[in-house]
């Protein structure tokens, strides 16, 4: 589809616009938070322990969402933690997309032993729940942001590789690729000029849709203490910390939970919107 057509469809997709606007807003808030944050996200101030949200009493000047069990400002931790979560998810999605793209292309285009091996590796990885494998690996390697990215990448590339593989296989069997092969055009040219452009949309869609899952897995791992190491804030860990005080100070848990939901929702919207826009099956 032409660029003009693409932009027109993009403008028409409500899901896409809502998703994109939501993500941009959240990302801006999180990444620009050092400019306006009034509190230290890691320094505890016991006098403020489990302070109630001051949204109504003091407005934006006070502890808007209250303080946690160690007297740290919930909003500041939320924004800084969001930055970490987004960065982790973004790195993982980039890495998994690249790995998945290369492996999927090779397996789908050349088939044979390569394909057979890839599919077996996929089967093996799929026989273990992502979270289970991830926490086992972190348990062995130790918890750190880098290790978190590595672990989520190891488990995450399979999705992309499978999507790319099946798309490439369909294209590989089409008449025009056969014609190109018969004409003696070298494989690398066929891959880059004919095959690659066709897998771009499914890859972008899959990657966007994977974002939400990544963020949720990261939160679960941080909750279990195998994600972002303390005292750096992360949403999963914030929820975990607030657990004990849920009866007396529910905001400590509710705030990061809602933030988590909004981010994942925004990414899912964006993914579905892109699917509507890019999938040639969906006519407007």
């Amino acid at each position, binding site marked *: 589809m032409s660029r003009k057509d693409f932009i027109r469809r993009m403008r028409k997709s409500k899901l896409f616009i809502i998703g994109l606007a939501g993500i941009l807003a959240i990302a801006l808030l999180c990444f620009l938070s050092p400019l306006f944050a009034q509190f230290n996200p890691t320094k505890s101030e016991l006098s403020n322990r489990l302070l109630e949200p001051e949204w109504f009493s003091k407005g934006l000047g006070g502890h808007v969402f209250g303080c946690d069990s160690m007297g740290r400002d919930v909003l500041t931790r939320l924004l800084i933690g969001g930055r970490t979560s987004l960065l982790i998810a973004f790195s993982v999605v980039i890495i998994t997309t690249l790995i998945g793209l290369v492996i999927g292309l090779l397996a789908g285009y050349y088939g044979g032993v390569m394909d057979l091996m890839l599919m*077996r*590796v996929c*089967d*093996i990885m*799929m*026989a*273990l*729940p*992502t*979270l*289970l*494998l991830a*926490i*086992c*690996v972190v*348990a*062995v390697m130790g918890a750190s942001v880098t290790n978190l990215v590595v672990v989520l990448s190891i488990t995450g590339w399979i999705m992309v590789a499978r999507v790319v593989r099946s798309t490439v296989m369909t294209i590989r069997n089409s008449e025009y690729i056969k014609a190109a092969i018969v004409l003696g055009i070298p494989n690398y040219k066929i891959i880059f000029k004919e095959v690659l452009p066709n897998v771009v949309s499914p890859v972008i869609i899959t990657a966007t849709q994977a974002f*939400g899952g990544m963020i*949720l*897995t990261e*939160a*679960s791992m941080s*909750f*279990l*203490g*195998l994600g972002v190491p303390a005292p750096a804030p992360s949403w*999963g860990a914030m*929820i*975990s910390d*607030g*657990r004990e005080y*849920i*009866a007396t100070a*529910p905001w400590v*848990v*509710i705030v*990061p*939970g809602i933030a*988590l*939901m*909004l981010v*994942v*929702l925004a990414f*899912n*919207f964006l993914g579905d919107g892109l699917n509507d826009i890019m999938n040639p099956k969906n006519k407007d």
Partner: protein
Amino acid sequence: MLKKILRRVALTLIVLFGVTIIAFVLVRLSPGDPAVQMLPATATEEQILNMRERMGLNEPYIIQYFMYLGNLLKGDLGFSFHFNMDCGALILARLINTAKITIIGVLIALIISIPLGMIAGIKRGTAVDTAATAFALCGQAMSPVWLCLLMILIFSVGLKWLPTQGVGTWKHMVMPSLCVGFSFCSLVTRMLRSSMIDVLQEEYITATRARGISKFVVYVKYAFKNAILPIVTISGAQLGLLLAGSMVIEQIFNWPGLGQLTVTAISSRDFQLVQSILVVVAIIMVLCNLLVDILYTFIDKRVSFN
């Protein structure tokens, strides 16, 4: 047919073989000497050396692997030093607990999501559809951790209906089951809605209606069987997500299932137990996927067993 079944069995064995390698490598990479862990803290150097010898830790890795594989084939899943009991018995007991909440959760999820998804698809664009879609979208975006705590906040803290954690009466099972099934429920609702919309546009549905079959029967009997197919396809892969979810959920509700056992095993660095859990989980996943494939061939005869 026989050839296809044999092929399928061979593939399954390859997968399990691969999983044992992953499990083995993970444990060998893990910090700490298994022999030291097996012994009390007061053990002497000599005792440790003896233990290493007895456990075969002085052999080359490849021999160790085959020893481990041999034990597995004999049904020996190793010994958990943390729980001081046989891994096999331990895992089995916990597995039953996980199965309880998972099965109940999935059943509740299906009871809710199947009618909801179908109605949303049939009554596309109405208030019911909007509500169902909103529910499904939010449900999929919710972290299981947060969902559990939210439920506790509502049902235990607020309404005081249900206990926050532990085992005992049926009341203890309500929240864990609901939490396990929740994201599955929203997924099925959403998928069923969209596949129902697709199926209802098919000519064979109009053709069935043209034969005088009432709308209701067409929806419930004829469209449903087509619309459920994509959900059957993904249900095998969903089991992984369900089990992953149960790890956090069991942790929160202190439910003595496989998920909680895994977390305990990892935090107490009981890697022998972790290793066995990985293998058992893989076996369950593989078997369930096999079951799903068989089920699929029964519903849709176009797909031959492969």
